[in-house]
C-alpha cells in the first residue's frame, strides 16, 4: 500500500536557487527507505516538503492517495502522521526537561492528561531513557539526545518517521543503538525514511533506496541492484558500499561465486569459493608442500585475462603416482599503469596516449589535475582512491593512466613499485612527461612478465 506519494515536486528557495525539482516518489507502507546523496543534494528540503512545512511550487504531495492541503487543520493531521526528526538534536529539544520535551507533541494534540502521560512513558521506555526523564537535555550525551528526539516523535504515534541524517555525530555504538531502535519501530509497523550519505548504511539497512544528486532524483531501486550501478553512484558523488567493493574484487579473481550482493560480512564469507583442487600426475621426486608448475592456461580456462599461468601447491601425494594440488592462477598479462605528469599538460598528447597505449581506465589525483581533465572533458573513471583502484584494474590485465602533478607523481610511482615488490606481480609502471621519466610505450611492447610465485 502506498502511504506517501509525490508528483512532480519542485521547490526553490527565496533567492531562486532550486532546492528540489521533479521529484516523483512512491513510499510503501512498512518499508525502510533511504535517501542517499551528498550534502546539499536536497534531501532535507524534500523532508520538509513531506510533512507540509514547505509548500511546493509545483506538483503535489499525496498522503494515503489524497493530495495534501495547506490549511492548519490538514497540516496538523499530516504532522501527526509524518514525524520528523531533525539532524541536529539541539534544534528539536527545546523543553527544559526530557519528560516535557517528549510530552510536547501529545500535549499539543490535545490528548487528555492521562493519555499524554501514557504516551510519554511508552515512548521513553521504547528508547530506554525512562531513568533520565527529569534531566535537562544539556546533561545528556549526543546519542541520548538523539534518542530523546526520536521519543518526542514516537510519542505522537506517527505512521511514518522521517529522520534527517540520524547517525551524524554519533559514535559507532550510539549509531548501532539508533539503528536497532529504528528496526524495532519498523518491525512494529512504522514506515521509516532516513537520509544519509553513508552508502554502507543505506546498502545494509534499507529495503528501497532513492539516489539524489543536485536537487534531483537520479536513481531508485532495491539496494542490491542500485548499488551495482557504479556509473550512477559516481554521478551522485558517492562510492560503492565497501562490502560490495570487496566482493567485486574477489569475484573478479574467481575467489567468490558470481552475481550476488552480500550485505554483511557473513554473507560475504558465504560467497567465497573454496580453493580449486585438482588431481594431477605426480612427477617423480616431488614432495608435499612443493610448488608445481602446470604451465599456461588460455582460452576459456582463464576467465580473467587472455593467458593465465598456473602454479599449484602439492597438498597430498597418492600412492599410485597421483597428487592433489591447490591451484594458484595468475593472469600472465598483467596490465600497466602510466603516470602522466600534469605539470606540463597537453590535451592532444593525452588523447594520443590513450589511443596508442590502449588505455581503458583513467584516473586523476589532486584537485588541479581533476580540474584540467574536467575542462577538457576527459572521462575520469576514478577520482578517489586512485592508486589502489588503478592497481586493482591493472591486475586484471587492463592499462591505466593516472593524471597527477607535482610531488604526487613520485609518491604514486613509489606506491606502485612497492606493491610490485611485495606481491611479485610484474606490473608495467611508467612515468610520462617527466624529464627523467621512462618512455613508457616502448616498455609496454607486449613484454611477457616474469611469473613468480
Amino acid at each position, binding site marked *: 500500500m502506498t502511504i506517501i506519494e509525490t508528483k512532480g515536486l519542485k521547490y526553490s528557495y527565496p533567492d531562486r536557487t532550486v532546492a528540489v525539482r521533479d521529484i516523483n516518489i512512491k513510499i510503501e507502507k512498512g518499508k525502510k527507505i533511504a535517501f542517499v546523496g551528498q550534502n546539499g543534494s536536497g534531501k532535507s528540503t524534500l523532508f520538509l516538503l513531506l510533512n507540509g512545512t514547505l509548500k511546493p511550487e509545483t506538483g503535489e504531495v499525496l498522503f494515503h492517495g489524497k493530495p495534501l492541503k495547506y490549511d492548519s487543520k490538514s497540516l496538523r493531521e499530516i*504532522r501527526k502522521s509524518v514525524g520528523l526528526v531533525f539532524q541536529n538534536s539541539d534544534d528539536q529539544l527545546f523543553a527544559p526537561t526530557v519528560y516535557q520535551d517528549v510530552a*510536547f507533541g501529545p500535549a499539543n494534540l490535545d490528548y487528555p492528561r492521562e493519555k499524554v502521560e501514557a504516551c510519554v512513558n511508552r515512548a521513553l521506555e521504547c528508547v530506554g531513557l525512562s531513568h533520565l526523564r527529569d534531566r*535537562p537535555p*544539556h546533561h545528556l550525551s549526543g546519542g541520548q539526545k538523539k534518542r530523546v528526539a526520536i521519543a518526542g516523535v514516537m510519542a505522537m504515534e506517527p505512521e511514518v518517521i522521517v529522520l534527517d541524517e540520524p547517525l551524524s555525530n554519533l559514535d559507532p555504538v550510539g549509531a548501532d543503538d539508533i539503528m536497532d531502535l529504528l528496526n524495532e519501530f519498523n518491525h512494529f509497523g512504522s514506515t521509516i525514511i532516513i537520509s544519509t550519505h553513508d552508502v554502507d548504511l543505506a546498502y545494509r539497512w534499507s529495503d528501497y533506496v532513492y539516489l539524489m544528486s543536485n536537487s534531483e532524483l537520479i536513481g531508485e531501486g532495491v539496494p542490491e541492484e542500485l548499488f551495482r550501478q557504479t556509473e550512477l553512484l559516481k554521478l551522485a558523488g558517492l562510492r560503492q558500499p565497501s562490502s560490495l567493493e570487496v566482493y567485486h574484487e574477489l569475484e573478479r579473481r574467481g575467489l567468490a561465486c558470481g552475481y550476488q550482493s552480500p550485505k554483511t560480512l557473513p554473507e560475504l564469507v558465504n560467497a567465497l569459493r573454496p580453493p580449486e583442487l585438482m588431481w594431477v600426475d605426480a612427477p617423480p621426486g616431488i614432495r608435499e608442500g612443493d610448488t608445481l608448475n602446470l604451465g599456461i592456461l588460455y582460452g576459456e580456462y582463464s576467465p580473467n585475462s587472455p593467458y593465465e599461468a598456473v602454479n599449484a601447491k602439492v597438498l597430498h601425494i597418492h600412492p599410485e603416482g597421483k597428487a592433489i594440488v591447490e591451484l594458484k592462477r595468475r593472469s600472465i598479462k598483467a596490465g600497466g599503469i602510466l603516470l602522466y605528469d600534469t605539470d606540463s599538460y597537453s590535451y592532444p598528447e593525452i588523447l594520443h596516449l590513450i589511443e596508442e597505449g590502449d588505455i581503458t581506465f583513467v584516473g586523476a589525483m589532486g584537485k588541479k589535475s581533476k580540474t584540467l581533465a574536467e575542462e577538457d572533458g576527459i572521462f575520469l573513471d576514478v577520482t578517489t582512491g586512485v592508486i589502489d583502484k588503478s592497481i586493482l584494474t591493472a591486475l586484471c590485465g587492463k592499462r591505466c593512466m593516472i593524471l597527477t602533478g607535482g610531488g604526487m607523481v613520485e609518491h604514486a610511482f613509489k606506491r606502485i613499485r612497492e606493491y610490485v615488490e611485495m606481491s611479485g606481480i610484474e606490473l608495467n609502471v611508467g612515468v610520462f612527461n617527466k624529464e627523467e621519466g621512462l618512455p613508457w610505450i616502448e616498455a609496454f611492447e607486449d613484454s611477457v612478465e616474469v611469473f613468480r610465485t
Partner: protein
Amino acid sequence: MTSILDDYALMSPLRSRNNWLKLMIVAFGLLAGVSATSPIPPLFIALCMSLATLLLGKIPLSFYLKLLAAPLGFAVMGVLIIAFFSGSGAELYSFNLVGYSLAIRADGAELASLVLSRSVSGMCCLYFLALSTPMIELFSVLKATRLPDSLLELSMLIYRYIFVFLDMALCIKFAQTVRLGYGDFKKSFHSFGMLTGTLFIRSWEQGEKLFISMNSRCYDGKMMLFEARKPVKAPEVLLTSMYFLSTIALLYLTRGVSVI
C-alpha cells in the same frame, strides 16, 4: 563544560522534595533573619541552612565555602564601614590615621554585628534554595503563581537555549584561542566582537529552526508543565516544624539582647 549552580541543584537529593516546602523554609528564614533584633537568631538560621545544604543536599564543603566567600567579602567591607562611622556610646577601640581619630563605638559594633549576621543568614537561605531547587522545578512554581503562560513558555525556551548557546560560545572561543585570537589586547577585542556577532546570527538561525521543529510537532500554543507530585512526608514536617519553633523561641528570648 563549566559546572554551574544549576548543575549542583539537579544532582542534589533535596531536588526530589516538595518545592513549596523548600520555598516556605527559605521565606521563613529570610523574614525571621531580617526581623531579628539580636545577631543570635540569624546566626542560628545560617547554621541550620548550611547544615541542611551540606548534609541533606550533599553539596561539597569546599564548593559551598567558595560560594559563600564572594558575597561575604562584600558584606565584611560594608560592615567595617558601618562599625567605624556610625553609632555613639562607649569607645571600644580607636586608632589614629594621619591625624584623624577612628573609633568603633558600642552602638556601631552592635549594628555591624546585626547587619553581618542578617546578611549571612540571608545568603545561606538563598544558597539553600539555589542548591536544592533547579530552575526546571521552579517553572511549575511560577506557573502556580499565575504568571502569564507566554512569559513562562518564553522563559522555559530561554532557559534551554542558554545552555545551547553557552556551549556554542565556548566552542567558538576555543576555536579562536587555538588560532591565537586572544594573543594580545587588540586581537582579543576583535575576536570577542566576532564571537558576539556570530552568536547573534546563530541565535537568529536557531530561532527559525526552533519554529520549524515546534511546528512539525503540531505546536498549538501549549508547553506542558508537569509538577511531579511530591507529597510532604512526616519526617520533613517534623524537622521543619522543629526548626521553625526553635527559631521563633530564639527570636523571642533574644529580644534586644546585645552581644557586645
